[in-house]
């Protein structure tokens, strides 16, 4: 077992455990903080996959943006002092049913992934991806890029519009 594997499994464990906490914890704040670890773990996996830019993006956007947003959402919608800080689940039968479904899908996917002969290419020597991503974004994916920026703009405006307090 080389150091690479160790690191991978370390991150994998972090991810799995924290994800489990996210979905199972009764306390919504716990969930939120576990989500932080999950995101960190995923960022680590990205690093292992030579995706430096994506890893940085993951940290900056997911952790710096999305997570903060979610926490704000929690705070805004939950009376901190009230009873509702703990989030309930939907009931025993549903939990069992959902667990079953999740299990089935997990087993199915793992089965599929491990039994498929993926087409694999030679590993590329590692190089910084930032420059290439930049080029791609501004050439082949220019339209998509622009569309995405418009989408973000719309999302901002839309979010502000939806969330505004009705007079």
């Amino acid at each position, binding site marked *: 077992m080389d150091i690479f594997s160790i690191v991978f499994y370390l991150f994998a464990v972090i991810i799995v455990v924290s994800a489990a906490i*996210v979905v199972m914890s009764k306390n919504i704040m716990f969930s939120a903080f576990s989500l932080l670890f999950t995101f960190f773990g995923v960022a680590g996996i990205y690093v292992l996959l030579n995706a430096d830019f994506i890893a940085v993006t993951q940290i900056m956007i*997911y952790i710096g943006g*999305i997570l903060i947003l*979610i926490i704000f959402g929690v705070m805004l919608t939950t009376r901190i002092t009230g009873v509702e800080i703990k989030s309930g689940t939907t009931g025993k039968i549903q939990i069992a049913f959902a667990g079953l479904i999740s299990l089935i899908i997990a087993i199915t996917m*793992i089965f599929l992934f491990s039994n498929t002969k993926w087409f694999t290419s030679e590993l590329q020597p590692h190089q910084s991806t930032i420059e290439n991503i930049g080029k791609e974004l501004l050439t082949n994916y220019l339209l998509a890029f622009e569309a995405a920026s418009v989408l973000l703009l719309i999302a901002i405006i839309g979010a502000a519009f939806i969330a505004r307090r009705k007079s």
Partner: protein
Amino acid sequence: MSIGLTHYLVLAAILFSFGIFGILTRKNAVLVLMGLELVLNSANINFIAFAKFGGLNIQGHVAAIFVIILAAAEVAVALAIVLNIYQNYRHINVDEIDKLKE
């Protein structure tokens, strides 16, 4: 056995399942959103894994970036909706919001 493509895929599958579980079980809309984030992250792992091993190369990275962008937008809008729901219902329990039924 060195860490290969399958490892990453399996990890992603597990993450995905957790995400689905979260979405299906939680009452709180914000927690549902967290589940959704997990699902998106698992997808991203797949993209990046294929970028490295499957010859998807830089395109995989770009796709991942777009997923992240979409996630950001989605969270913003979804939280806005959540706030709106909160203002209307004074709670954000998704199982009690069944106006769609009518």
